[in-house]
């Protein structure tokens, strides 16, 4: 299940049906809004999404993960609209009998979301200005969150 929504995201485990969680190892990733970026104080943050493509591409990412990592259940949610500091912008959950697969699938899905999901982040600064963050993946280098 892939969800794009303007309201606060559920916890990762709530994205999967209880039956899927009973299978051994559950890995959850949450990406949260930070209060700073490249040295500037951020007061709030908005995400603009191309909803139709984001929904379809999110579902494709999850389907690919299920293919790549075998018997693993995956789900993800991404926020859009205005977020306060500390709120979750993205949540990914992967559950599997084998924890290795759950870790690998969760990691792969968040990497794919950051690479492919048509969502754009605009930061609001203390001085009232706003700016699109060029690219979460590349401009911050390979170590970026």
């Amino acid at each position, binding site marked *: 299940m892939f969800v794009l929504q303007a309201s606060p995201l559920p916890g990762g485990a709530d994205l999967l049906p209880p039956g899927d969680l009973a299978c051994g190892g559950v890995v959850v990733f949450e990406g949260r809004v930070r209060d700073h970026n490249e040295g500037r104080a951020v007061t709030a943050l908005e995400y603009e999404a*191309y909803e139709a*493509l984001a929904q379809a*591409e999110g579902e494709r990412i999850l389907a690919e993960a299920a293919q790549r990592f075998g018997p693993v259940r995956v789900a993800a949610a991404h926020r859009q609209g205005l977020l306060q500091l500390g709120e979750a912008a993205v949540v990914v959950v992967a559950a599997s009998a084998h924890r290795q697969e759950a870790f690998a699938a969760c990691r792969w899905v968040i990497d794919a*979301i950051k690479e492919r999901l048509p*969502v*754009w982040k*605009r930061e609001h600064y203390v001085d009232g200005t706003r700016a699109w963050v060029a690219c979460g993946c590349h401009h911050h280098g390979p170590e970026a969150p």
Partner: protein
Amino acid sequence: MKVTVRYFAQLRDAAGTGSEQVEGDFRTPADLWTHLCARHVFPLGAADLRVSVNARYVPFEAPLGEGDEVAFIPPVSGG
């Protein structure tokens, strides 16, 4: 041929709109982008962009059809 173009983020700011209908003689997103660059001053070039047609990423040389929804996708920054 008539298509709907969707704009997001920096391209939306540059176009001054989130969407427009465009009519002209273009057979691929690459043609369409050249056409649009004559109408708007975009801060990003084709090398920075991906393109989607009807909510699916496609190559810049994919065929366009009447009524397609086309979006040029700036570098994404979700997550």
